[in-house]
């Protein structure tokens, strides 16, 4: 129905250019520093990981928040996206390296990254379709069980695939396979090192826009109807299976892109990064932020990515003499997950609806405003 069709502002492309330019300048500043002040590699890493978390949290919002389904296997989609895009980069470098002879470097590297990310999206989406189609016909709890199983199966399979490193992990993704007697080509790896913040920021912004536009469209409204009363949603003519499957596939594809970003950022993958805990972490982000709120997902991703790092720094609060006397203080970071849990329990008691409930920052909601000036889900 056209009542909730999102309205595309006449000058939105201007804003788009400004955002891209802004990210580019930020990236330059973060990586190379301005006036001698740069961001330490550590902080840049945390910020970049926050961006990847945002992609994860915002795309999961479409399924667990908007449609009210319950996936606890999104680490699996992240893993298939990560390994697929890493494999394309690792094994499919030859044509790009050949292109480097005739074209300037950055367009070739950019193309190479985007091809790999696109493959990550496609594989994630197909996996989402294969998992979603049979289960989304059923009631919500089946989805939870099946996605959980899917995530674990993917991890175990990856542990046993030799070409992508198996349990040892997938190393030198950007450099490509080792060729005896030739030193590896570092150019793509260097390019990634210097630009990943930019790409992550761009994809995170794109994800927020895509999911926001979907959530605030008539499609998003049909997801909200399914969430609130699935039988009634079917009774008013919503193709519930199709709507849920679409949401699931889009979410899984975006999660696959997040996996691809993660692979290219670390230039290394290990199946142990994609355990059940990772799935729970993403769910936690959006529950903490407020299920169904994109603003909440963004904040939740930030909090849950920064918090463990901040807790890691706890030991620095104490001088070595103190930690020597009381060794448990040194092991405080090991209790991160416990602190996490406590914080979460506390928050859920204080604010059961999450930080944002279903509300959005007005400036963000404005990006998704409809033609009639009505807001969508909210």
């Amino acid at each position, binding site marked *: *129905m*056209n*009542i909730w069709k999102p309205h595309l502002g006449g000058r939105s492309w201007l804003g788009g250019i400004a955002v891209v330019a802004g990210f580019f300048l930020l990236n330059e500043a973060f990586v190379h520093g301005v006036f001698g002040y740069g961001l330490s590699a550590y902080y840049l890493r945390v910020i970049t990981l926050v961006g990847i978390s945002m992609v994860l949290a915002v795309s999961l919002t479409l399924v667990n928040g908007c449609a009210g389904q319950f996936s606890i296997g999104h680490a699996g989609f992240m893993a298939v996206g990560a390994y697929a895009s890493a494999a394309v980069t690792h094994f499919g470098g030859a044509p790009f390296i050949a292109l480097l002879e005739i074209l300037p470097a950055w367009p070739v590297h950019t193309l190479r990254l985007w091809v790999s990310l696109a493959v990550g999206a496609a594989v994630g989406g197909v996996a989402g379709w294969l998992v979603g189609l049979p289960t989304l016909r059923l009631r919500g709890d089946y989805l939870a069980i099946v996605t959980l199983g899917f995530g674990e199966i993917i991890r175990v399979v990856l542990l046993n695939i030799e070409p992508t490193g198996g349990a040892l992990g997938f190393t030198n993704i950007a450099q490509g396979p080792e060729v005896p007697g030739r030193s590896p080509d570092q150019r793509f790896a260097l390019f990634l090192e210097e630009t990943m913040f930019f790409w992550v920021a761009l994809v995170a912004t794109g994800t927020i826009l895509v999911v926001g536009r979907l959530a605030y469209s*008539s499609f998003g*409204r*049909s997801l*909200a*109807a399914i969430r*609130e*009363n699935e*039988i*009634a*949603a*079917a*009774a*008013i*003519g*919503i*193709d*519930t*299976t199709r709507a849920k499957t679409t949401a699931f596939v889009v979410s899984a594809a975006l999660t696959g892109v997040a996996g691809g970003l993660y692979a290219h950022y670390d230039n290394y993958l290990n199946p142990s990064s994609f355990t059940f805990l990772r799935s729970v972490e993403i769910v936690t982000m959006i529950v903490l932020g407020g299920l169904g709120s994109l603003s909440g997902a963004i904040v939740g991703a930030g909090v849950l990515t920064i918090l463990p790092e901040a807790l890691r720094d706890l030991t620095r609060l104490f001088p070595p003499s103190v930690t020597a006397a009381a060794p448990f203080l040194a092991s405080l970071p090991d209790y991160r997950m416990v602190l996490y849990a406590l914080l979460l329990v506390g928050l859920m008691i204080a604010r059961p609806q999450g930080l944002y409930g*279903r509300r959005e920052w007005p400036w963000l909601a404005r990006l998704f405003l409809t033609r009639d000036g009505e807001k969508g889900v909210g």
Partner: protein
Amino acid sequence: MSEAGHRVVDAPSLLTAENLVVTYGAIEALHGVSLTVRKGEVVTLIGANGAGKTTTLKTIVGLLRPKYGRVIFDGVDVTGRPTHEIVGRGVALAPEGRGIFPDMTVLENLELGAYRQPDRIQFRRDLEQVCTLFPRVKERLKQRAGTLSGGEQQMVAIGRALMSRPSLLLLDEPSLGLAPLVTQTIFDALSELNRAGLTILLVEQNAHLALARSHRGYVLETGRLVMSGDANALAQDARVREAYLGQ
């Protein structure tokens, strides 16, 4: 002759259910139910708790798939078709327990009822009609539907069903849990809709009122139709009076 007005005996059938057998796992809930609703009729399906009334309606709109039997709507066999397709053909269901979207406003509920209706002008016109039919709804368009009274929620549920411009309206116990006065209001609205040409299949435990407003009726007992006929005749029938009218 019922309050519903003229009799529509000779009108063509709009809905025919043939020998519906529906199972939940090993339990067979319907053992071969056949019924017909003709164009312009109000037909009531009465029966005790667990008789299979809701199951019958769900099967008609495709929420359940019959093991045997057929559902024919407007001359088309829609057995086993997905619900959204059957709804698209002109069947609307106001589900049992109202089934509104509680966190949305009344207006949003009604807008969703017009989900398959892309025409904005038509939407405004339909909305106006629902508001005329239920002035209480009009006053509460901006209110969260979950905060409405039971009767108001039922009005929203019916209004939402009407927004899809159905030719057949299925109602599952619209009087459930409502005060007699509100029930009257709702049945008045249904009679008005029927006079305007809407065909209605009604499931009710409030047999007295429902039969008084219907042309014909069916009595369902543990998954089997045990009686059918003219609504007045059913209301006079000794067995019906004893079992469903408490007389």
